[in-house]
């Protein structure tokens, strides 16, 4: 048997969609192997996951709750990836956003009405995430430091800094020694739909945010420049696109969106700053896959964000009902990402498999 890899002569939208669905299917098949090895019927497990997330009102409400941060972060990441700026640091941009908005909430909150305080806290979160996101952009352009390394490492710095704050200077007087800050004032807490954890404000923020970013990429001058940079760096320089400004603004938006997600979690779910793991549940990493599944169109993260939120919620459900290990969801997500990226290969290449005699070169 011989396998030949050849460049694809032409590709179509239908083909791209089929490859996307094929990649998802292959990912599910691979995950099935993991389930089977754990002695669980794979079909039942996958069915249970989606039943857990989309099969009940409770599941759907939880899925939307978790989709909100994924959409916020994922749309910002899609924007960065469009320029081939590999931001792996959304997790820390989220945390820094949460730190900034906590500070505003705790210090100014008691004296301000909700209508002023909530926007201020979101603004602070956006600025925090943006500043944290701009650091790797500046490092890359000025010193040529690889953004994958710098964004990844900044994750640890931010996480340790949050830990330092909650056990140290910001430790709440009212928390009986636990590593939490004091509760945010009531004006800072977002309303939720009855019998759910979905905040209408956050839902609107996430959906409009993703749509605006999608519009930005495809309709604005800035978006055009982002796409040119991602497509051909040299042509971008040659045509006079200002790299420094474009990439810094780009990362400010990308980090700012993650910062908003941090503030949202804080103001809707947690109500105080605590350990980084409990605040984020790895949204910054899951959102990488969300952006990828959306084919780097920020607007599509609304759909892919829901899909992955479903996996997170359903994964929690089968952890409990089937006794699967807690890492199941991570394996699930990881598998899907690997297969999605592999799928991209088939968009640019075709494979021919021939049975029979092998010709040796």
């Amino acid at each position, binding site marked *: 048997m011989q396998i*030949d890899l050849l460049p694809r002569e032409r590709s179509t939208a239908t083909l791209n969609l089929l490859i996307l669905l094929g990649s998802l299917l292959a990912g599910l098949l691979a995950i099935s192997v993991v389930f089977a090895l754990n002695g669980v019927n794979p079909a039942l497990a996958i069915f249970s996951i989606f039943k857990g997330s989309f099969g009940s009102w409770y599941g759907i409400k939880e899925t939307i709750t978790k989709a909100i941060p994924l959409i916020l972060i994922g749309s910002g990441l899609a924007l960065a990836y469009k320029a081939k700026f590999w931001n792996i640091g959304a997790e820390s941009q989220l945390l820094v956003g949460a730190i900034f908005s906590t500070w505003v909430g705790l210090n100014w909150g008691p004296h301000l009405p909700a209508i002023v305080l909530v926007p201020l806290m979101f603004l602070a979160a956006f600025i925090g995430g943006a500043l944290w996101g701009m650091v790797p952009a500046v490092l890359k352009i000025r010193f040529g430091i690889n953004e994958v390394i710098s964004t990844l490492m900044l994750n640890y710095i931010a996480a340790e800094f949050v830990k330092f704050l909650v056990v140290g200077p910001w430790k709440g007087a009212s928390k009986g020694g636990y590593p939490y800050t004091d509760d945010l004032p009531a004006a800072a807490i977002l309303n939720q739909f009855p019998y759910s954890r979905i905040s209408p404000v956050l839902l609107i923020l996430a959906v409009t945010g993703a749509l605006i970013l999608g519009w930005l990429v495809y309709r604005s001058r800035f978006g055009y420049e982002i796409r040119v940079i991602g*497509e051909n760096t040299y042509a971008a320089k040659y045509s006079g696109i200002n790299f420094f400004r474009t990439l810094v603004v780009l990362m400010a938006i990308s980090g700012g969106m993650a910062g908003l997600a941090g503030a949202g979690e804080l103001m809707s779910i947690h109500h105080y700053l605590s350990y980084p793991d409990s605040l984020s549940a790895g949204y910054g990493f899951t959102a990488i896959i969300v952006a990828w599944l959306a084919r780097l169109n920020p607007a599509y993260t609304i759909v892919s964000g829901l899909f992955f939120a479903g996996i997170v919620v359903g994964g929690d459900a089968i952890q409990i009902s089937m006794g699967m290990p807690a890492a199941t969801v991570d394996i699930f997500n990881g598998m899907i990402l690997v297969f999605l990226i592999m799928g991209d290969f088939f968009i640019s290449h075709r494979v021919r498999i021939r049975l029979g005699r092998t*010709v040796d070169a």
Partner: protein
Amino acid sequence: MPAKTPVNDTPVIEMRGITKRFLDNVANDQIDFTLRAGEICALLGENGAGKTTLMNILFGYYSFDEGSIAIRGEEVALASPKDAIANGIGMIHQHFTLVPTQTVLENIVIGTKDEKRFFLNLKGAHKKLLDIQEQFGLHVDPDARVWTLSIGQQQKVEILKALYRNSSVLIMDEPTAVLAPQETVDLFKTLRVLAEQGRSVIFISHKLHEVMEISDRVVVLRNGRVVNQKRTADTDVKELANMMVGREVLERIERKAVEPGEPVLEISDLTVLNDKGLEAVKKFSLTVRRGEILGIAGVSGNGQTELCEVLFGVRNVETGTVRIGGEPLRLGHPLSSVRSGLARIPEDRIYMGLLMDMTVEDNLQLENHWTERFAKNGLRRFDEIAANSQTLITDYSIKTDGKDAPAKSLSGGNLQKVILARELSSEPEVVLASQPTRGLDVGATEYIRQRMVEEKVRGAGVVLVSDDLDEVMGLSDRIIVMYEGEIMGEVVGSGADREQIGLWMTGVGS
């Protein structure tokens, strides 16, 4: 050169009735092609005529829909380049496939059986390589790192690579497009040695003089069909050009006399370093006036590229100033070059000037997208943009499926037209065209040369940098010759003496 009698009667390659379709598009239509041992066969045709498709089929890159291929009389299925190589076919692409940081020997051994062992058998390979070098007179230091070699030497490495794999047929895709004149002479010597030793060469080219000089036989393709084939000795340049484009080609573009106006491009005392930190342009001064074409001739690598890069805004200078339309140009700043009214037609179109995975429209927008006409308050004005794309596609007769087709679906000539449309539609003051027709077919070449003359008539100052001496002499009102970063000599275009220019190009002063 005289045609040789074939060594052996069975053709080395016999392609019968090859048809290849890309969706609705027939790229090859019932093509018959034979090649004999020791023969140099030229494959001539415009871009998009189907030459490269046919050769990609022969090299196993593409499948075909109908037809058959026989090698030395035996029918074969070539499903991948691996099969083609196993059958003694080697292909040398326009863009080399060498690893720059590795040595010549390592590059040659890559992918052969010698390399598949855990420890490379470099000693044996070294000896085998030296034998091949001796046999064909192709001398390149096996231990030199590829990045230190000139383009001509790199091409030799590619040829050695094919010979090392025992190729009896060499497909060369526009091998002279990247070469300096002297390197072309060397290449032709090599090809003749190969043919004398019974190897066959398929030579894809647009350059008629080269085809006449090197080939034994010419096969002319047009619109995916073989329109004619002839022994080279029995034909001439005019006839070939006619067959190729199917109409009478203007051998020489009408120069059109225009009274030159005031100076529009003034370069003074420019000193520029190349990437290795050596002076590539030395104290260079030049004035170009409105309504004239100034040709810059010279062997490539004598500072022309660096000079162009400075004007394009992508290379910094040591000393010197440039003025366009009387205004000083801010150097090292691409956007300033654009705004100054300079049309930039770069040497390396795909690398510098195009976005291959984006649409034709996106490409037409590049470097104009920020203008008030196309973007207001940061928002793109899509009506205006679409109208502009349509107008340019029509005005510059760009052959495409529409403004939203990806640039990579266009042929080389049409890609160059996209750049011309983008650069010239703003009625620039100065047009700087670097190798504007390199690698293009006769039709596109003619079109682009015509446009250069039109720009001059309109009143722009045109600077034409080209390795193609015929082009420089045919179009320019004034010619300067660059040698080692300096102006070696200057002549009036109409009275230019070819021999004198040739001497200047090789550094012989008058």
